[in-house]
């Protein structure tokens, strides 16, 4: 069933195209694939304009959960309804999932060897460094730092220090930090 085009985008992918396109996105990135999703959707296949992409990404980033999975659901729904919303994220995850499970099998077989342990230890150290750098960059991007960075510190104390359960920390933190943001927005 093809309906007349109403969106500004030129193309309307079918289920197969959605699956394959999101598979290639899933397999192309290391440590986050969102930039690849943008390139595929906006530049390569031109399923969306940059403005459309930004508008849809808004909710994907607003809600918790893996942003790029959320994005696949949105794009899938937009072009092929409920089926598309299933096929696109499955395409995104199927390939990487298979690879990661293959690595898990290798780990089960050889993970106890000193060589493997050493490599994983080295990668974990680098991975930890990449996380510190990511936190630094995200922290630097926060506006109104004197108001909001104290909440970062509170989260670190509660989560890393006191090991409190994260759902409660997040609910309380969001009430406080969101409350401050709400108040500051009203003053402008």
């Amino acid at each position, binding site marked *: 069933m093809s309906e007349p085009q109403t969106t500004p985008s030129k193309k309307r992918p079918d289920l197969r195209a959605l699956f394959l396109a999101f598979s290639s996105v899933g*397999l192309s*990135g290391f440590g986050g694939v969102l930039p690849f999703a943008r390139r595929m959707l906006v530049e390569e296949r031109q399923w969306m304009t940059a403005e459309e992409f930004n508008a*849809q990404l808004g*909710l*994907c980033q607003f*809600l*918790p959960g*893996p*942003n790029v*999975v*959320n994005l696949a*659901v*949105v794009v899938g*729904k937009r072009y092929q309804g*409920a089926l598309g*919303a299933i096929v696109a*994220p499955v395409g995104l*995850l199927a*390939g*990487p*999932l298979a690879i*990661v*499970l293959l*690595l*898990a099998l290798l*780990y089960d077989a050889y993970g106890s060897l000193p060589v493997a*342990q*050493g*490599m*994983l230890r*080295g990668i974990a*150290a*680098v*991975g*930890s*460094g*990449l*996380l*510190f*750098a*990511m936190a*630094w960059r*995200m*922290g630097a991007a926060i506006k109104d730092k004197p108001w909001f*960075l104290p*909440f970062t*510190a509170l*989260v*670190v104390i509660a*989560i*890393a220090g006191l090991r409190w*359960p*994260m759902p409660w920390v*997040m609910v309380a*933190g*969001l009430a406080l*930090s969101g409350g401050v*943001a*709400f108040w500051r*927005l009203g003053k402008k």
Partner: protein
Amino acid sequence: MIVLQLFLEFALLSFVAFGGATALLPEMHRVVVENHHWLDDTTFTHLYAIAQAAPGPNVLVVTLIGWKVAGLAGALAATIAMCLPMSVLIYLLIDRWESFAGKRWQKAISIGVSPLAVGLIFSGATLIAQAAQFGWAAWLLVAATVAANLRFKLHPLWYIGVGALLGLLGLV
């Protein structure tokens, strides 16, 4: 029934996964290692390292944890639990997003969430270091990675490769 328990624990976590699966590292460690003793510290950091070295979205560390806890069923249960609740919610909300995007409360939540996400990711980084019991050489590698990553624009695989090599040589 460990698979069901895993599913419920991770489905609950998906509701607070602001900042994606990466932000959940400390809580996944708390639930999986400290509360349930499904994995030990070393295995947890190894799984994180494997997820780093593999292509794909960050959420796959969840798949690996599920796999180690309860095999293939665990891997699928954990992954679906992490993705499904928000996928359903976003499916239902996306057509109405424009009606609340930019409202004061919506902006307040977005602004309010980001300092919390920074704290979670910072905690994740310290947790990996703690669980792996880094010595001074490993901390040096952490510091070098941070400095290089903030300074240069290198593909993440370079870091992974260097880390793996130094580890292979027994230097960290």
